[in-house]
């Protein structure tokens, strides 16, 4: 063991005083700043700048092909008296609340189901994701055909079963159109909710369920007292995102109904697009888009304050 030859010592190089450049090179904050710069650049260029520009546009009378003048609140005053704008606000709220609530219900149910041990578990979990990976516009086109007034497979099937004798005018009737777009949104949004909640369920330690079994809990009591409280932080995050995505939805509506019939499915996003791009009223469109901001902020605030980190999640401090 002691036979290893020890290398002869060499003269060491002289120790140099650290210059301020050397110190800067080893400063973690300085390094951190440079790591942040690319992300910050992207966010400013593609998020903050367009947002600022949009808000600015909403205070001008810009049209396509004409530089606008600053007109103050005129666009907003105009919208205040615009029944179609208020209809789109109502539609958006209806669309968001109904779709989000049902997405939560079905998503939670699917997550609980997929968390059980069953055959082909991995395959079923993958299958649930399918609606999520199909491009939105493609699925919207598929729904467009499914709900077509003449070629709808639903009408066809029901007619062959003898339940109805006339085609249902899915996208031509205001109530049916609303149900159809909400249905399409749910179909598309459930996988996100289900898979995220499933991930949350898997973080719950199985020994908690064993302990609860010995404590005498029934399946429902286990869900009510263990699963649900432990899942609330994830539910808060998922539902915030789900509400934000649903509120700002554009693709599904535009591909399926373009806001019709008689503006019954116009959301704020589609109305904004119609006014700004199709009609060329950039200022007015920007004002509609900007009007979404308070609603979105409110949704974030609800999850921020109402569903804040619970006391039991906080660190090991003894307050």
């Amino acid at each position: 063991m002691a036979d290893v030859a020890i290398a002869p010592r060499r003269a060491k190089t002289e120790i140099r005083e650290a210059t301020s450049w050397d110190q800067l090179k080893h400063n973690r904050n300085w390094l951190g700043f440079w790591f942040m710069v690319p992300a910050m650049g992207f966010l400013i260029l593609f998020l903050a700048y367009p947002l600022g520009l949009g808000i600015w546009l909403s205070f001008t009378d810009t049209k396509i092909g004409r530089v606008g003048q600053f007109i103050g609140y005129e666009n907003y005053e105009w919208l205040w008296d615009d029944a179609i704008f208020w209809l789109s606000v109502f539609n958006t709220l209806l669309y968001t609340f109904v779709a989000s609530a049902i997405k939560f219900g079905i998503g939670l149910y699917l997550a609980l189901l997929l968390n059980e041990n069953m055959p082909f578990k991995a395959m079923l979990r993958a299958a649930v994701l399918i609606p999520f990976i199909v491009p939105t516009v493609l699925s919207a086109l598929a729904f467009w055909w499914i709900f077509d007034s003449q070629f709808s497979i639903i009408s066809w099937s029901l007619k062959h079963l003898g339940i109805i004798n006339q085609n249902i005018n899915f996208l031509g009737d205001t109530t049916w159109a609303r149900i159809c777009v909400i249905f399409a949104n749910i179909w598309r949004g459930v996988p996100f909710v289900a898979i995220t909640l499933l991930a949350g369920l898997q973080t719950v330690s199985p020994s908690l369920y064993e302990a609860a079994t010995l404590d005498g809990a029934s399946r429902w009591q286990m869900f009510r007292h263990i699963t649900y409280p432990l899942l609330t932080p994830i539910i808060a995050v998922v539902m915030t995102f789900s509400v934000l995505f649903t509120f700002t939805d554009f693709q599904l509506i535009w591909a399926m109904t373009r806001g019709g019939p008689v503006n019954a499915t116009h959301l704020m996003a589609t109305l904004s697009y119609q006014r700004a791009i199709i009609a060329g009223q950039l200022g007015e469109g920007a004002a509609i888009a900007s009007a979404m901001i308070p609603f979105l902020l409110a949704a974030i605030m609800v999850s921020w304050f109402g569903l804040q980190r619970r006391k039991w999640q906080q660190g090991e401090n003894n307050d």
Partner: protein
Amino acid sequence: MSSVQIRDVRKSFGNFEVLHGVSIPIEDGEFVVLVGPSGCGKSTLLRMLAGLENITSGTISIGDRVVNNVQPKERDIAMVFQNYALYPHMTVADNMGFSLKLRGAKPEEISTGVKRAAEILALTPLLDRYPRQLSGGQRQRVAMGRAIVRDPQVFLFDEPLSNLDAKLRVAMRTEIKELHQRLKTTTVYVTHDQIEAMTMADKIVVMHDGIVEQMGTPLELYDTPANQFVAGFIGSPAMNFLKGKVKSNGVAGFEGPNGVKLPLKTAPANSEGQPAVYGVRPEHFTIADDGAEAEIVVVEPTGSETQVFAKLGGEQVVAVFRERHQFSPGDKVRLKPDPSLVHLFDETTGKRLNG
């Protein structure tokens, strides 16, 4: 409080049998420790007792009732888990009162029960805290408190101390034993740590590869291990084993590796030349002129005693001395096992040969 009878219990996962017919009688109020290396089936057996695993065959009864098909919550048992399994979103008081709440007890009833258990375990100042705000030892006590509140027939402990640091483990060991002396509830305790088993148990069950190797009081197991596995498992540092042949013609003795002569009080009948394993505990060596010559390799003083690693007939052995000999590596010493305390095991079956 009740007795527990485990009769010829088997457990298979698919075609793989992990418990091969285990029978353990447990008396009312007894503290039984199941001990064995990992994978010996001790935790599985405990989980079967709790009702968390099915029983493949055999019966388990608590009191007079066979519980094979009884739901866990109907078995009237409480279990302390290795990771404590405290509900992170409930305070200490809620954790402890959860089982009463599920049973539909009145709030006053719950709070009385929780207070009583908290007093026993000195948890009263912590009742409003969440598990995250507790230290390891406090969490351990809450887990026990949760068990006590229910006032069950049987306590089950599944390696409850393995997540604690060494010092706390010793303290909690004493605390659990004291708790048992106070409550006198039948207790089944699983551990892989033979020191825990020795210090706490009324009865130790040594398990290995899905069978019971030996059952008995701690000192029975230490003094007369039934086979080589138990001999090697119980005791620290572990027993020394030397292979060789029994000499029974004339003076009884043992010929160890490389012809080392070792003393034997009595040889089993008709055993001249029988190959066997000679077992001697480290503390049963003495330095004597008629001992076998050994060369010291390493000396490890611990203060209260000194562990000496030495080569005896080419095999490494450990000896422990309470006296402070001045040894250094390379020294030659004469080690003599106490002939009345040596063990002899069959070389192939590992069974004990001497009485």
